């Protein structure tokens, strides 16, 4: 692949992120009731979208792994789980920063918050599982099983928690009557969603490259051990 593609990927991510931050702070108009604080929404909500994308990738590549047994699918699931965990943690971090000035509290066990926390726990347990199995082949299969069950569980969790209680702001994108954004806000938001996905894909590609390098190294080690058994 060489170095060209990663460099281009990096530059695109950098420019897109800079554009996103320019739009967040200078282009998007100030919100009427919440003021400047609302701007964290452009970072917070895309993080949530990316966390969802990441877990979906974990699910799809887990299914592919169990079906085709391809190490590449396993690497993708693992990488997406790790990077997704970072995004999900940032999501949980930026939420309270917004909630404190607007709701007056850092945290509440409302539907979406609870669900996000559950998603975070699923990421954590998925990654812990991987590090506690000694044989790599076994880890891949078990992680795939856990990844699939966890993903199927997310909508059920969502339903149960929503019936239970809800306080999070209703969806403003594609919500019902009376929802909607200023066009400039909408544009900023979509640019941010794109930028964060671009960042995610860049980190994912780097993490995949690392996984591939690890596989190559362990294959080389095996070859060496066969050729020079004494060492």
């Amino acid at each position, binding site marked *: 692949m060489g170095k060209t593609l990663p460099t281009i990927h990096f530059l695109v991510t950098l420019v897109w992120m800079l554009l996103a931050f320019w739009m967040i702070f200078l282009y998007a108009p100030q919100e009427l009731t919440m003021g400047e604080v609302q701007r964290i929404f452009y970072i917070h909500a895309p993080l949530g979208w990316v966390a969802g994308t990441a877990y979906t990738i974990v699910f799809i590549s887990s299914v592919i792994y169990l079906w085709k047994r391809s190490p590449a699918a396993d690497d993708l699931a693992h990488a997406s789980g790790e990077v997704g965990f970072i995004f999900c943690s940032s999501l949980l971090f930026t939420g309270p920063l917004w909630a404190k000035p607007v709701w007056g509290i850092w945290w509440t066990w409302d539907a979406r918050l609870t669900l996000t926390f559950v998603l975070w*726990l699923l990421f954590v347990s998925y990654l812990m599982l991987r590090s*506690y*199995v000694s044989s790599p082949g076994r880890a891949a299969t078990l992680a795939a099983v856990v990844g699939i069950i966890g993903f199927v*569980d997310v909508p*059920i969790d969502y*339903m*149960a*928690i929503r019936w239970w209680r809800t306080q999070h702001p209703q969806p403003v994108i594609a919500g019902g009557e009376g929802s909607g954004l200023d066009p400039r806000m909408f544009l900023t938001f979509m640019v941010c969603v794109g930028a964060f996905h671009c960042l995610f894909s860049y980190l994912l590609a780097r993490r995949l490259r690392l996984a591939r390098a690890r596989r190559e190294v362990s294959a080389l080690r095996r070859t060496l051990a066969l050729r020079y058994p004494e060492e």
Partner: protein
Amino acid sequence: MNPTPVHSLKIIAAVLTKDLRLEWRNRETLASVCVFGILVVFLFNFAFEPGREESLRQLPGLLWVAFAFAGVLCFNRSFALERENACLEGMALAPVDPGLVYLGKMLANLIFLCIAECVIVFAASLWYNFSFVPSLKWFGLITFLCTLGYVAVGTTFGAVAANLHMREVMLPVLQFPVALPIFIAGIEASTGALKGDPPSSYMSWVKLAAGIAVIFVVLSYLMFEYVLEE
């Protein structure tokens, strides 16, 4: 191998009776799970002052915390035994559908956990001076459905955790987030039932619990093949 329904039932029964016979001979799982569950109820007694109104609000939650931890103990034990004697390999090698092995293990766990739950409920009823008799039908149904769903995931994750270091810690970490909707449905529905509300007011929770139980049993049945393989 003859995949007729009768043959499948025989395999399930073989695994189930094996677990029941083992338990009958040493009675270790039930004893530890029941004692542990009672201890949880006992400790809660110090955390909350029980009055009648209070206990109505707290009992369902308290019971489900006790059930959840008793379940963890039960599922860990279920596969720790298989692991000690290298029986997991035997099960993986047996020329049968691994899903049937799963159903056998799941039914055994269901029986153990239901017995433990009866003991826990009895202890709670005694110590909190609360009679479960008026609402027994609905409370029993709700608790059974939720327990079925919980045991369905718990058995699978018990088998997954049997492969890990730190399996005692990893089992709750793996299964609590997934079992969360079961806990919510169980607590909400049994609060309604114990209060004596009309069943229609908590019917949606009962349906949700039944749906979850079906989904988890089917999903685990399909995935167990991958959990067992070596």
